[in-house]
Every structure is written in C-alpha cells, then in structure tokens.
C-alpha cells in the first residue's frame, strides 16, 4: 500500500510538471534555444574552426547541458513557489521523498530531450560524427540522473528566495564539477577523441547519481518543510 502510493505520488508530480511544460512551453521555447545559442557562441569564440570544435565537442556539449540544466531546475521550482503552491504541496500530505522523485523525474525527462537536441546540434554545427552509441547514451542517461537529483535538492532550497537567480548556479555548478568531468571523459571516449576507459567513467557517473538520489530522498523533506 505504502509503496504503491509512493510510486503513484511520484508519477503524479512528474506528470503534472511535464504537463505544465507542455502547456507553458518554457523549456521548448526558451531553454532549448538558449542551449543551441551556446553552441553557436562557442563557434564564434573558437574562431569557427571546425577541427577545434570537433576536438572540444564533448566539453562544449556538457557545458551547454549544465547551463541549460540550471535554467530547467530554476523553472521547475519557480512554479512551486508561486501563489501559495509551496503551502499546498506541503499540505497535500504526499511523502516528501515521492515529491522529490517526481520533481527529479520531470527534470530528468527534460534533460534527456535537451541532450538529444544538443547532440543533433553538435553534429550540425561542429560537424562532429557521433559514434560509440552504447557508451554515449548510457553515460548521458546517468549524467542526467545525477544532474536532476542534485538540481532538485538545490532547486527546492533556493525556490522562493529573492537571490535564487545567482544562488542556484553558485551552489549547483561546483557540486556538478565531477559530473562535468566524468560526462566529458565518457563522451570523449565514445567519440574516440581520447583513449580512456569510458565505461569506468560511466560507473563513476552512476555512483554520483546514486549518492545524490539517496541524499535527496533524505534531505528533500526538511528543505520543503521550512517556510
């Protein structure tokens, strides 16, 4: 019974967030264009040199994902801090851990979509040939899981604060440094740019995701409760 409601509540929250995105289209109309714009800006900054861009693809790709992820997290919690919604969410009596899973799940889905579109973006703008699909997809998925778990934790922490615009990236980006390193290495390995064992980086990213999901299940409640 209890586990049934846990999954139901998480699914309910995730479905609500995704529906909210479908109705408002903030991610589609603002975050995705922003992420693609970043790729274009990297092109300008690096002199439009395709060889350089191809060599740096994995790094630039993940920097774009990280910046866009900050915006997705911000949006995901902006909707929870409007007009007494935070009170309502606390009063609904759902278990905080299931709300965490639901919020993180919706962010995860949006990140996956973003990663796919940015993958197309680097193929088009940088002329990168995407190879090593197994590792590429697997590492992108676990990296997205880690980013959404850590992002959800900091998102609920900064939601409703007046300084959230600068505080969220300041807190989130240093914590995500290992994800940036790991995901960049794994992608570099998949693309054959660097001779490293990409799967060990996949394992590393999976450990990161596990740790932050576990931390989120425990810490999301206290952070949501505080007024």
């Amino acid at each position, binding site marked *: 019974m209890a586990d049934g409601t846990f999954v139901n509540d998480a699914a309910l929250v995730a479905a609500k967030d995704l529906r909210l995105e479908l109705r408002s289209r903030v991610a589609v109309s603002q975050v995705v264009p922003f992420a693609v714009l970043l790729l274009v800006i990297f092109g300008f900054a690096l002199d439009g040199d395709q060889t350089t861009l191809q060599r740096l693809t994995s790094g630039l790709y993940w920097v774009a994902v990280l910046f866009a992820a900050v915006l997705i997290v911000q949006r995901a919690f902006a909707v929870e801090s409007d007009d007494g*919604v935070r009170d309502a969410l606390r009063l609904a*009596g759902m278990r905080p851990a299931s709300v965490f899973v639901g919020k993180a799940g919706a962010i995860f889905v949006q990140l996956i979509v973003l990663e796919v579109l940015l993958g197309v973006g680097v193929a088009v703008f940088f002329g990168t040939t995407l190879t090593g699909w197994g590792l590429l997809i697997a590492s992108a998925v676990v990296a997205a899981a880690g980013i959404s778990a850590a992002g959800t934790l900091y998102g609920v922490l900064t939601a409703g604060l007046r300084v959230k615009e600068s505080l969220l990236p300041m807190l989130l980006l240093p914590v995500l440094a290992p994800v940036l390193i790991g995901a960049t290495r794994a992608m570099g390995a998949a693309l054959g740019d660097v001779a490293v064992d990409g799967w060990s980086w996949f394992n590393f990213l999976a450990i990161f995701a596990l740790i932050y999901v576990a931390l989120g299940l425990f810490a999301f409640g206290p952070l949501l409760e505080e*007024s």
Partner: protein
Amino acid sequence: MVSETVISLRGVVALLGRFPALARLDLDVDAGEIVLVRGPNGAGKSTLLRVCAGLVPVDSGNARVLGHDLRADRRVIRRSVGYLGHDTGLYADLTVRDNVRFWARATGASGADADAAMVRLDLDTRLADIIVARLSAGQRRRVGLAVLLAQRPKVWLLDEPHAALDENGRDVLDEVLRQAAAGGAAVLVASHDHGRAEQLAHRSVSLAGGHVHSVREPGGTGVFGG
C-alpha cells in the same frame, strides 16, 4: 458525535521568526461546528489557521488536531485538513481541470471527486479548460474551493473566504460549509466580512494580541467588534 473536540489548543505559542504571533492562545472547536475568528489585522488570525493546518510549528503549549499532538508530528493531520489561504495554491499555467484533478489526487481524493466538485462550483463548463493565470481573483478562489470540496477534509480552515467572491460564489461557499459541518467537519473561518460570516457561524471568537480576547456564544447580538 457533535460534541467531539476536533481542535484543542491550550496556551499555544507560535513564533514567526522571533515574534510570538500566537501568545498563549486557547481555543476548542468541536466536530460539526462553524467558528468565526474575528480580529484586527495582525491579531494572529492567519497564524492560528496555519498552526491548525500544521504549517507553522507550535513552540509551546498543547495543540491537538483530530487527536494528534502537533508538537510531536504536524504532518500526520495534513490530508485531513483543508486550508484555503490568501493565496490559492494553484499552478498558473495549468488549466482549471488540471489543477483540481492534480490537487485532489495529491490529497488522496479520486478523479471522480474532483469532477463532482467542479460541477458543484460551476467550473465544469466554460472555465474548465482555461489556464488559471487568465482567471479573476474570484474565479481562482472558486477553484481553490473546488479543490477543498474534492478533498472532503475533516477540518476546514479558511482565511477570508468571502473576499473576492461574487454573491453567487458566496452563497455556494456558505452552503458548502454548512454541509461540511452537518457532515461532522469542524470549520474555522477567519473573516473581516462579519455580516456574512456571522450568519454562518455557530460561534465567534475575537482575537487580539495573539490570544482569544472574547467569545460570543450562539445567539449573540448583532454587535460586531473589530
């Protein structure tokens, strides 16, 4: 059944920051009772409702809602408590129907309950598929009320519920509250709008300085303080 005490507050102190918004407040509300909470701005009306909903922690004193000690755990009661504050707690970018369904299911009610509540508040036709951001304040309040109705709480806590509603909305609200009380729920209404709420309430208490200043029993005269 009628004399069962649902809310029991004894010497309750609740702090907002370091400010004692409630200063040794005593109040009992029985099942089936509608109690009006009056008092000037800053008297502690909203804090009282938020304490009863388990949103604001009790610092000292004895607070029980539905038999649960709020100092021990203020989360257990939440599904049995319906709270409508100044803010309606709706997602601005979702439609009325999405909002009512989501919150009904989040509080453990069914989709059918949500649909019935929307019919009752006349939200099922013209307004159902409009996003909440486009609604007027009164319409939002109606949606908030629909969520409460779907939830069917044992304790209703309403902060200025008549504000922003039109005449028809107020009639529906009064009827909903009377029915809830008749069904054994305890209803606590904080209001400035005494005329309407006085008629509705079985009893009114007057709050000032964070405690109950005076109590007017049923059949009191029409002299309104405040």
